[in-house]
């Protein structure tokens, strides 16, 4: 008996159809997942079904909850259902809670049960695994970490013992170890309460870990459906197959140059000022050689990005030394040659490009500054674009007119324009869809091979690092707890933190 049955759901915004007749159902105690890349309409379908997004028009042949209530026909009944029977958890733990209200007030706001509200709130907080729930009732959302906020959001969705829980990318913004905990919590709730679960995600591994049935969504349609094992084991539909193929796969290892290009010894970097100053990087020793990719992994706040910027001479170092190509590198005395040789690629390609510059201007600027080649500037720009496989016709466009992958190519080209020797890629593929991510990774590997670049690849995504890095360093609370050859570290992590981190990684069954 299905808890929620949807047939031929269509969604449009301002007359433009975006979801074209999808059908799905979920039973009690089961999990149905929708997977797709950004813009496929997966989140939109559900928020339209629940009437959460204003200005969205949804129609369906049937959208029936518990075989009784037609969701789309009756907004008032739908609201009553939302209050009692359907819980909803959003993807943004940082902004999904009201910053002005205490968590207890938010959890029990819609509570209809008989218990005293504060007791109910404490009970739920305990159930989702928050320690000392009594003490935390009057805390505000900003006093919780990201993972804890997501737990609070789940507690809030559970307040009236709903029969159905809808989770929209519930772990996307979270670290892997926290993600593992949240997914375990969802599975546990599903089993203990007989909860029906709908999960929306872009992450194949997450879906494979939780779902009983998966729909693959693309351009507003379900192109493929089945159990995770069927779908990812022997993908039948070409799009599903392409998704599986885009998963990062371990590559052939490169042989690095024998002497390191960059060598940091006992590095210490402080951030903040006055009473809030603290060592974000503490006693790090690390080296990178030409022709190799060194992965730097760790959870948010571990100091990865700070370390990357300090290695580029962008942040002053409190203690320790950096040797680059045999010379001392100091942040307040970086030579022009060193500045050009040390380049950075950012996570968000849109934010890292000047919105007023065309791609041509973005690439011409560093060339004018550093290039000593005799060819005309326009020719050099075109060659750079060709190096990063960026079509020439895009050169006059601005960042807002490019796709995510094209922007990241432009950002990489800008770094290459300086003819760098070391590239620090700070979460350079984390904001990109799976297929685009695979392309950019391929590009990076090509550049390392052809130009003998040294790359420090910073990422929280362990699967990507495993696929691309020759060596890996694991960072935790400002310190490198372990480093070594990728395969060795993966197969036999020694440090407890590495073990915990790698143990939390989900993989797609093949």
């Amino acid at each position, binding site marked *: 008996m299905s808890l929620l049955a949807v047939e031929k759901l269509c969604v449009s915004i301002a007359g433009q159809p975006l979801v074209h007749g999808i059908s799905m159902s979920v039973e009690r105690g089961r999990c149905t997942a929708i997977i797709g890349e950004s813009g496929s309409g997966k989140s939109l379908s559900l928020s339209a079904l629940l009437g959460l997004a204003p200005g969205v028009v949804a129609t369906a042949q049937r959208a029936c909850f518990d075989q009784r209530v037609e969701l789309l026909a009756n907004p008032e009944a739908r609201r009553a259902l939302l209050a009692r029977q359907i819980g909803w958890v959003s993807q943004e733990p940082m902004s999904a809670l009201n910053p002005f209200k205490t968590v207890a007030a938010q959890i029990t706001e819609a509570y209809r049960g008989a218990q005293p509200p504060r007791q109910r709130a404490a009970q739920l907080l305990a159930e989702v695994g928050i320690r000392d729930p009594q003490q935390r009732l009057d805390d505000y959302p900003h006093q919780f970490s990201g993972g804890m906020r997501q737990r609070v959001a789940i507690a809030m969705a559970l307040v009236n013992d709903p029969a159905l829980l809808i989770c929209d990318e519930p772990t996307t913004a979270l670290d892997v170890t926290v993600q593992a905990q949240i997914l375990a919590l969802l599975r546990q709730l599903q089993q203990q309460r007989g909860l029906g679960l709908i999960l929306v995600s872009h992450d194949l591994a997450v879906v494979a870990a939780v779902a009983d049935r998966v729909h693959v969504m693309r351009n507003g349609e379900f192109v493929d459906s089945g159990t995770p094992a069927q779908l990812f084991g022997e993908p039948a539909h070409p799009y599903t197959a392409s998704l599986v193929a885009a998963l990062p796969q371990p590559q052939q290892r490169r042989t690095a140059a024998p002497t390191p290009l960059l060598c940091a010894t006992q590095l210490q970097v402080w951030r903040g000022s006055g009473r809030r100053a603290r060592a974000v990087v503490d006693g790090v020793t690390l080296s990178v050689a030409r022709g190799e990719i060194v992965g730097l992994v760790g959870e948010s706040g571990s100091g990865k990005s700070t370390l990357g910027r300090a290695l580029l001479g*962008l942040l002053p170092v409190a203690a320790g030394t950096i040797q680059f190509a045999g010379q001392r590198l100091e942040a307040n005395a970086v030579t022009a040659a060193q500045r050009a040789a040390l380049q*950075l690629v950012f996570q968000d390609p849109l*934010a890292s490009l*000047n*919105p*007023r510059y065309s791609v041509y201007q973005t690439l011409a*600027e560093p060339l004018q500054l*550093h290039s000593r080649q005799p060819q005309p500037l326009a020719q050099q720009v075109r060659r750079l674009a060709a190096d990063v496989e960026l079509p020439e016709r895009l050169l006059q466009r601005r960042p807002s007119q490019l796709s995510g992958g094209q922007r990241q190519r432009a950002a990489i080209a800008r*770094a290459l324009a*300086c003819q760098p020797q070391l590239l620090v890629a700070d979460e350079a593929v984390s904001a990109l869809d799976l297929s685009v991510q695979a392309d950019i990774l391929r590009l990076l590997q090509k550049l390392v091979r052809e130009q003998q670049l040294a790359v420090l690849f910073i990422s929280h995504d362990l699967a990507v690092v495993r696929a691309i890095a020759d060596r890996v360093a694991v960072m935790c609370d400002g310190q490198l707890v372990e480093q070594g050859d990728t395969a060795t570290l993966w197969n036999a992590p020694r440090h407890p933190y590495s073990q915990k981190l790698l143990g939390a990684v989900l993989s797609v069954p093949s």
Partner: protein
Amino acid sequence: MTGKLATSAALWLLATITAVCLLAPWLAPYDPSAQNLLLGAQPPSLQHWLGTDSFGRDLLSRLLHGGRLSMLIGLCATAVALLLGVSWGATAGFVGGRTDALMMRVVDALYALPFVMFVVLLMVVFGRSLALLFIAIGAVEWLTMARIVRAQVRALKQSEFVEAARCIGLSNRQILWRHVLPNCSGPIIVYTTLTIPSVMLLEAFLSFLGLGVQPPQSSWGALISQGVETMEEYPWLLLYPAAALTTTLLCLNLLGDQLRDWLENSSPGGAA
């Protein structure tokens, strides 16, 4: 759609008002200060489209000449505010650290001063010269501009594309001129558009109190002030100057608002 229509209407209206006011010396049908005591105050007629005041002076001519002065003051004082506010705010925001803290503390302190009272005092004490009027008004209005520019510059300074610019080796000066300032031009333009009406309002306020523009010169504020004195007998002397001022302010504010909406919607991450 209505918004678009209103905007283009406001633009045309403003352009027309500005043009006829600036061309007042050539367009005005009469000498604005030529008295005709025999004629006295007349309601609007074919000879005097907007009527005459109690000295028999043609209101239309006075309105055009007054508007010319009001607008010139609006533009000049806004220029003062723009120059001062942008350079102060950009310096504070870009240099950061202690300099920023000190410079913004000065702005905060000035914010807390009863500036309008100082302006009133200034005008009383030093006589009512036009140059002083520009400076006094500009000095009041630059504070908000400085805050806006500083906030923009600080946000942009931390943005990734500025870090990228630093990484490719641009100097601070190049970063400020090429990457930071062009990207705050949107808010600067918007706020400038909104400063002009508030400057004109302040001038009219001072002139209304008898502290701004002095006879024989006249501005809309001064005309309103004169109109109020005789409004029961000759209401047109109040209504037309009031309508001129309000319409102009309305157009400027409408354009500023539209510009802001348009900028906020059209540049993703641009000015954030």
